[in-house]
């Protein structure tokens, strides 16, 4: 499954669990303005860490925080690329 579909399906799963209605998940969807609160985003980040093995928020000491869903997906895609490069160098 691609990072994009992992992220969107997790967001939908958490919206369902917390009984929130979401608009359609487009790239300009502002994460904190569309029914998901920061607690829900925090849960998404934790489950993504468990699923993808990535937490791009804590990998750097100066993070540009993602605002839209598009930023958020790119944030994870970039972290995945970096971790691939890292494993290629060390592995």
């Amino acid at each position: 499954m691609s990072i994009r579909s992992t992220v969107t399906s997790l967001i939908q799963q958490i919206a369902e669990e917390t009984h929130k209605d979401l608009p359609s998940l487009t790239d300009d969807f502002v994460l904190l303005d569309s029914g998901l609160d920061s607690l829900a985003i925090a849960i998404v980040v934790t489950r993504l860490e468990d699923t993808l093995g990535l937490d791009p928020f804590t990998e750097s000491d100066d993070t540009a925080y993602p605002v839209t869903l598009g930023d958020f997906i790119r944030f994870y895609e970039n972290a995945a690329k970096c971790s691939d490069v890292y494993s290629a160098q060390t592995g």
Partner: protein
Amino acid sequence: MPPNALTSIRHKLGDASDCSGRFLWGAAAGVSLGDLLRSTSLGGRLPELSGRSVLLATRDQLATALALIELDGVAGRLVISAPDLSSEHLPSVIAKAGVDAIVSDHDAHDHRAVGGRLLFISTLDLVPAKREKIEHRPTEWVLLTSGTTGAPKMLVHTLKSLAAPIDLGRNLGTDVVWGTFYDIRRYGGLQIFLRALLGQGSLVLSGAAESTADYLMRLGVHAATHISGTPSHWRRVLMSPQAGAIAPHYIRLSGELVDQAILNTLGSSYPRAAISHAFASTEAGVAFEVNDGLEGFPASVVGASGEVEIKIDDGSLRIRSARNALGYLGGNNGVLADDEGFVDTGDVVELRGGRYHFLGRRNGVINVGGLKVYPEEVEAVINRHPAVRMSMVWSRKNPITGSLVSADVVLKGETDQRRESSQIADFKREILRICQQNLAAHKVPATIRCVPKLDVAAAGKMIRHYA
């Protein structure tokens, strides 16, 4: 003015003419401090509240602020209802504090709670009032904070202990506009309310249903210069499309563990701002502020003499100062300070490279975006599921809210490896549902793991690990 001369907020504000150009802005309305001093939000019935034990049950922050200014120095005791106080615990709060009057800004009331007590409905439409001469008395301020079983702990402060961390002699100027993501009914927000009022500034308060983006826009409109919040509040700001609406000179973080990432990101997002993080709790008050841009705090803070004395005993941070709460109300919450007057914060610290760093809470308390969660309360709810033998709730680090609640669950009967995975998934869903029905959202476990066993110490208590 030395803190000793501070008799009441109103006394410090002085005359209406001293307050020109100063405002309190709420989500729906704004009030000039000058107008406030010539009028009342309590229908002119202030003298009836003199000396009483008053429950402040207002929901709107501006209504709360107006009532605090009018009542401080008049009421004998002010019990400030926390935003999350449940109606279940209201009667015991009223009984313990001997409440005989209630100030509210809404009509929906628990009639059991009101009983025969005086009820005052406050309004944001101020009514001009002749200020009668009222003998100012030191009012006891009672703040609520969450306790192990969900029942709130009630802490007694005075204006003097609350204002002790504030340098009253320092005039930041009337251009200072404070903003806080905190609710002023909690210690962190109350500190900012008092900094704005006892200094020369104005204050922009957030609305209960207001989004971060809308509040940021209002902070921008009023040109807020000094803004405070928890690291989680600030992360929410940085994830908002309106993050650029503010240009603060001063950013203050408190209420949660502050990491280097949030300090650095705030520094690069708001290059004009001085960034400070404070360690404070309702019990111990503000202990210290760190202004060097680094996480943790310098070792030199410990053992130094001064207004606040800090020691580390048995791994945890202990504080003695005039900023400490005076004690608990209601008696059943144990003793606040040790024999020498030090309050144990329960925060476990470790010395690394000349700085102390926070490791977590001794009693396993989880701090989710500034809100405390006691593991025992969550475990008791999980254990209601008939298939659960035991559970342990722990703090999982999170880059958005600092921490999240996680649960390890041991199921009854066969070991979990022998169960169908679909059955385990069903159990997890059911446990989650029970938690959602019985707990506030931030207390519901974000992840649930089924484990074959939990570590139990010789005395039969589960072994809790930090963070």
